[in-house]
């Protein structure tokens, strides 16, 4: 419980730090209100530059389910937020995934520094609804985990290097700490915390309006860590493949699909690979909304879990 409180404190502290940095980093252009001429159609210049970084719209990515900048399921090599290489960007998100027998509440913040390094913090709460009763844990028994993530861009530029085959490449780690140690050990998990390591390659094929990502993750996590780490079947790091494909319909609208393979460490329940199909709308650099249809397959005693994924991201 104390740990939970500590996490919440850290979480809100991080939000305030983010907002604070935001204010400090704001461009000092306040005196420069656009001259009002009769060329009004030449674009509504809001004073958006004052409070937002200069990456192009949507190229800061969304917030994936563990808090890193990415798609919905998988991290991308993109550094989150709209900061370019001499700017700081950041965002906060809330994601809700509702499938037949469970739901997940997921929230987090990230900060991207100089388009080089990204730190993220996320909290996932996985609610077992009636399954909790069937398992003798009680209705709406909830498994929670806190995730601290770090990602570093090591090569390339996904957006501007359009004449190069080299994608943007980043490496990252996600340290996860689950708060239900006793239950996790009872179902065969070897540990309540663990660290995933990944390498991502992301490239925007601008002439085709396509974005591609491929990620390899080394992980021991069961159901991304919500069911602990390692198991009675396997307790070693195994590479998993994740991928995203997005098609840009306009500057602020994208559709796409994702895949994420997962290990099978626990004897009590088969674990499925995950898929989703999504649509994202970013009316401005400050906000994006993502709606997805997610297929999560078998989760413990319930098979064929699928449903809606809704995510709201705000940032700069």
């Amino acid at each position: 419980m104390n740990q939970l409180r500590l996490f919440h404190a850290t979480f809100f502290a991080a939000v305030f730090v983010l907002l604070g940095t935001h204010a400090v980093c704001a461009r000092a252009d306040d005196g420069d209100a656009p001259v009002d001429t009769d060329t009004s159609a030449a674009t509504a210049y809001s004073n958006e530059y004052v409070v937002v970084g200069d990456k192009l719209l949507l190229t800061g990515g969304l917030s994936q389910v563990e808090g890193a900048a990415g798609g919905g399921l998988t991290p991308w090599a993109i550094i989150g937020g709209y900061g370019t290489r001499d700017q700081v960007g950041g965002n906060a998100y809330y994601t809700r995934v509702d499938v037949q027998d469970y739901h997940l509440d997921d929230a987090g913040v990230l900060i991207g520094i100089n388009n080089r390094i990204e730190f993220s913090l996320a909290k996932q709460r996985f609610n077992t609804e009636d399954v909790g009763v069937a398992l003798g844990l009680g209705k709406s028994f909830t498994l929670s985990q806190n995730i601290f993530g770090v990602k570093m861009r090591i090569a390339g530029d996904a957006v501007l290097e359009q004449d190069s085959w080299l994608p943007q490449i980043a490496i990252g780690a996600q340290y996860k700490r689950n708060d239900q140690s006793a239950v996790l050990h009872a179902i065969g998990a070897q540990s309540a915390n663990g660290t995933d390591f990944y390498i991502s390659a992301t490239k925007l094929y601008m002439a085709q309006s396509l974005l591609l990502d491929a990620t390899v993750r080394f992980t021991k996590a069961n159901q991304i860590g919500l069911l602990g780490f390692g198991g009675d079947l396997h307790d070693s790091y195994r590479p998993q493949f994740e991928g995203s494909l997005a098609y840009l319909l306009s500057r602020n609208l994208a559709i796409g699909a994702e895949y994420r393979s997962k290990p099978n460490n626990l004897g009590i329940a088969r674990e499925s690979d995950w898929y989703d199909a999504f649509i994202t709308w970013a009316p401005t650099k400050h906000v994006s909304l993502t709606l997805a249809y997610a297929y999560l397959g078998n989760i413990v005693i319930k098979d064929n879990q699928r449903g809606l994924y809704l995510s709201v991201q705000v940032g700069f």
Partner: protein
Amino acid sequence: MNIYRKTLRVFIAPATLLLACCLTGVQAAENPAPANASLHPVYVQFGEKAGLVAIVDDLMINLIRDPRTRAFFADADQKHIKIELVDQFCVILGGPCTYTGKDMVKTHAKLKIDRAQFNALVEDLQNAMDKHHVPFRAQNKLLAKLAPMHREVVNQP
């Protein structure tokens, strides 16, 4: 032995040249307006030369209104810049034009341009293309050719 030496020489000569170029900082400027005949349909989607003139007119208005780019254009020879931009875009899109301007390194040598300002120009161009109803996919075909120029235009960390 002889073959071995010959082989070695074949590799060493270009490698030395490459090293020398790197050390002396010799860097051939990229062609600022590479023609892409295959993009001619996109040129048509832009409304050909007249369309480009209208788009670049609005681009310049946007650049001057945009606090991030204003300093570079407000006191510059806007008419000249617009002519060069139209020709450059026209050639890149496979249009019947000739670009007579300088290369991108020389053009921007006296300016201090960072990545954010480069992206700002992209946004201002996107806004101008939107205003003239250039289809999004066609816009991206031009931007894909312009984007790599950041290596020559951006000269600030």
